[in-house]
């Protein structure tokens, strides 16, 4: 063994001692020593990779430097290669983690929101009975299936829809009322209930007192007037409603002052007549002068003037002064 087991190379000959002992130079001694050298060198690791390490190499806390990244399964790894791997003891992944297999864990750490720092709580599932979601020691509740959610939603909707009027048609069980000042629907420019007929057809509503009386009330598309008719009023009968649209009712009348008119004179003679001195005015009074003719018993009277008034009629448009008809 050229090495002493502790890494020290051991020579077989000592040429000084041989010289002192009078041993001459001998070829066999040199061969023995050279063979020992050769045997020792063959125990070393050849840097061109010819030799195979036969035992573990104690590195004595020293590094193997400038090592290439591993390629084969039994290759040693470099620090650079190792830094890309998640330590089994745990670490932080800065990118997305995609697992094509199963993940077994005692819990998952979640984020408190879509952004911001990670929260400190862990969520997990309890598979005993219903599938429950837990965060730490808090039971968030059972997970719901699609069927369960749909059933619950339908039941909830039905609960609130049941007392509502169905747009497709329904029967009212009570009165339909609004708050003071409120209206139903919005028809045209006013808040109102709109009754819409077909194109160029009547728009009507019906009033029905069962067993007593019933009739329709509607808008005639032909003349734009409202009518009531049908049912108790007779099929085919329609009675028009008269409004200020088709009627201009006279609501009041009065005579207003026009003036007092003095008969025309020529000199000291009354001349001509008093014929409607104001257009459309009517006379409501006359005054005269005259007196007893004396012994003859005659009476001489002269009309000196009159009082005239206008006739006015009140319509939905206000007071109008009127004159002769035609």
């Amino acid at each position, binding site marked *: 063994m050229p090495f002493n087991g502790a890494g020290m190379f051991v020579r077989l000959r000592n040429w000084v001692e041989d010289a002192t002992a009078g041993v001459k130079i001998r070829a066999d001694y040199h061969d023995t020593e050279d063979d020992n050298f050769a045997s020792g060198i063959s125990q070393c690791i050849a840097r061109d990779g010819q030799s195979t390490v036969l035992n573990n190499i104690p590195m004595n806390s020293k590094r193997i430097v400038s090592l290439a990244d591993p390629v084969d399964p039994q290759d040693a790894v470099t620090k650079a290669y190792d830094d890309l791997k998640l330590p089994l003891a745990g670490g932080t992944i800065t990118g997305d983690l995609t697992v094509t297999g199963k993940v077994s864990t005692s819990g998952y750490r979640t984020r408190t929101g879509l952004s911001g720092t990670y929260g400190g709580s862990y969520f997990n599932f309890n598979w005993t009975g219903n599938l429950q979601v837990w965060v730490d020691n808090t039971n968030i509740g059972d997970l719901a299936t699609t069927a369960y959610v749909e059933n619950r939603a339908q039941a909830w909707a039905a609960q609130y829809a049941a007392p509502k009027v169905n747009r497709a048609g329904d029967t009212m069980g009570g009165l339909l009322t609004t708050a003071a000042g409120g209206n139903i629907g919005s028809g045209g420019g006013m808040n109102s209930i709109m009754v819409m007929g077909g194109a160029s057809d009547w728009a009507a509503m019906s009033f029905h007192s069962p067993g007593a009386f019933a009739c329709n009330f509607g808008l005639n598309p032909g003349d734009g007037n409202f009518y009531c008719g049908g049912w108790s009023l007779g099929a085919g009968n329609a009675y028009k409603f008269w409004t200020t649209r088709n009627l201009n009712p006279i609501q009041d009348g009065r005579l*207003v*002052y*026009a003036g007092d008119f003095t008969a025309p004179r020529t000199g*000291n003679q009354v001349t001509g007549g008093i014929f409607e001195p*104001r257009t459309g005015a009517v006379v409501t009074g006359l005054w005269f002068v005259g007196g007893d003719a004396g012994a*003859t018993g005659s009476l001489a009277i002269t009309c000196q003037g009159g009082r005239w008034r206008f006739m006015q009629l009140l319509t939905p448009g*206000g007071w*109008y*002064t009127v004159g002769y008809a*035609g």
Partner: protein
Amino acid sequence: MTQIIDHGRWVPYRPDQLPPTAPPNALFCRRESDGVDWYDYVKEGSNFTADGVKFTAFWQDAYNGFTVGAAVRDPTLLFPSNMLVREIIDYRGGEPQIELGEKLYEPDTHRLRQRPALPPLPGFDFEGLEAQVAVLEARVALLEDKLERVLR
């Protein structure tokens, strides 16, 4: 000093198309200066003051001047066809029709004054008539006398 607003002179006319609420025999007049319709002028609402006295004045030959016709606070009571319309906005009196009616109105000065009394119409000549009757009666008596003598 009495403050009078001049609302113009109004003349009769017939609109091409009657307002839908007007009676068929409604009379119309419009302001001579701008043609505005009287009813529209009243309904506009801001042409007259609320408390002012509005009056009409019409021409009378007998007085050779304008006489106040109607004098009211409500302008709908007026119809000023062929008349002037004025408004006294600070009227302090009582019943305007009684106090202003028949007064003469001078448009140039806005003066309102009492209408002068017209000269009395001449009385009937009763004495002359009686004299003529007496003459006729005397003639009748003579004729009766002649007739009686002829018949004898």
